[in-house]
């Protein structure tokens, strides 16, 4: 089914157009890469999907509904920054997620956190940035959501952590969910994707399966991206 649908979606900040009459349809059960240079509108699109921004015109629908509390209950969002309260301890964060999200799998989260060996009374502010990122990822992926929106999950992270993050995503997403990974680090993420969406200046210039791109161009999607977006 169509989990995310954009119809002539437009977002303007004053004279700057972040999204330009964008059309896009993404189905459940796929891992899709939202690929584009900085400023192409990736984060704007994801924010609108989470109702952190309102479109200037056009619409975006999640499972047929305009973003609201109901869509937030089925969308699991990982922003590209530290968004968890610094004073909260691991135990409290788990409780928080369980309190507010019905689809939160506590057992799964505890299992994954065990691998990181963080004591449950350690507050966020006492963790390294890399550990914070992993905690946020674990909490996000421990939800049995229908849509996962991951904004730059592997940027600013060392290669070993990248593998961990990608493995965690593959291992934990709900099989029929839509996973949208926004990134500019395509080479690392390519083998995990089903489809790629190329975004340039707020417009979708490509939406194709990874296999099809590789067969058609004889290159990796990363190499093809570099050609398409050569400065």
């Amino acid at each position, binding site marked *: 089914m169509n989990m995310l649908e954009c119809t002539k979606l437009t977002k303007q900040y004053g004279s700057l157009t972040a999204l330009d009459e964008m059309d896009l349809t993404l189905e459940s*059960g*796929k*891992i899709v890469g939202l690929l584009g240079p900085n400023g192409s509108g990736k984060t704007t699109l994801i924010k609108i999907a989470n109702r952190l921004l309102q479109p200037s015109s056009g619409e975006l629908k999640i499972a047929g509904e305009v973003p609201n509390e109901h869509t937030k209950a089925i969308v699991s969002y990982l922003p590209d920054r530290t968004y968890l309260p610094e004073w909260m301890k691991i135990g409290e964060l788990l409780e928080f997620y369980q309190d507010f999200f019905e689809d939160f799998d506590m057992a799964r989260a505890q299992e994954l956190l065990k691998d990181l060996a963080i004591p449950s009374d350690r507050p966020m502010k006492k963790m390294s940035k890399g550990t914070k990122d992993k905690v946020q990822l674990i909490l996000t992926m421990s939800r049995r959501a229908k849509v996962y929106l991951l904004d730059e999950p592997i940027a600013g992270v060392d290669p070993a952590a990248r*593998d961990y993050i*990608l*493995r965690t995503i*593959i*291992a934990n997403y709900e*099989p029929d969910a839509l996973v949208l990974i926004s990134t500019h680090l395509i080479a690392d993420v390519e*083998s*995990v*994707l*089903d489809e790629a969406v190329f975004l340039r200046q707020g417009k979708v210039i490509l939406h194709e399966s*990874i*296999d099809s791109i*590789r*067969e058609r*161009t*004889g*290159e*990796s999607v*990363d*190499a093809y991206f570099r050609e398409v977006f050569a400065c």
Partner: protein
Amino acid sequence: MKWEFENGRPIYLQMITMLKESIANGTYPPGSRMPSVRDFAIEAGVNPNTVQKAFAELERDGLLHTERTNGRNVTEDQAVLHRLRSSLAEESIDEMLRRLKKLGMNTKEIEELVADRADKNDALEGRPAEGTGEESK
């Protein structure tokens, strides 16, 4: 541990090749249970749908079959396995022949060279020479 894939070809095709080799050389012995699609995907660092496609293809070729208990097993059919080894061998040989022909060698030269190298190889591995032996790699 992430597998390395090359760029131009779809990953599922490359995975099929790797799996065929692994089945042929006994890494996945006949009758053994294959890991689940998800476990395999996690280990290889790829999308589960890719693994699914590769497994499905191998099933179509008769190399894997699905058990009632929701898993996939490697075939025990020796005829199928023999055909697999032969076809993989043929691919290797065809590739080699293409390359050597490009270097300007003719069939007789190639045959002599193959026999010679095969003997040398056997000697290195401590086996008696077999004359015109089969391609050993």
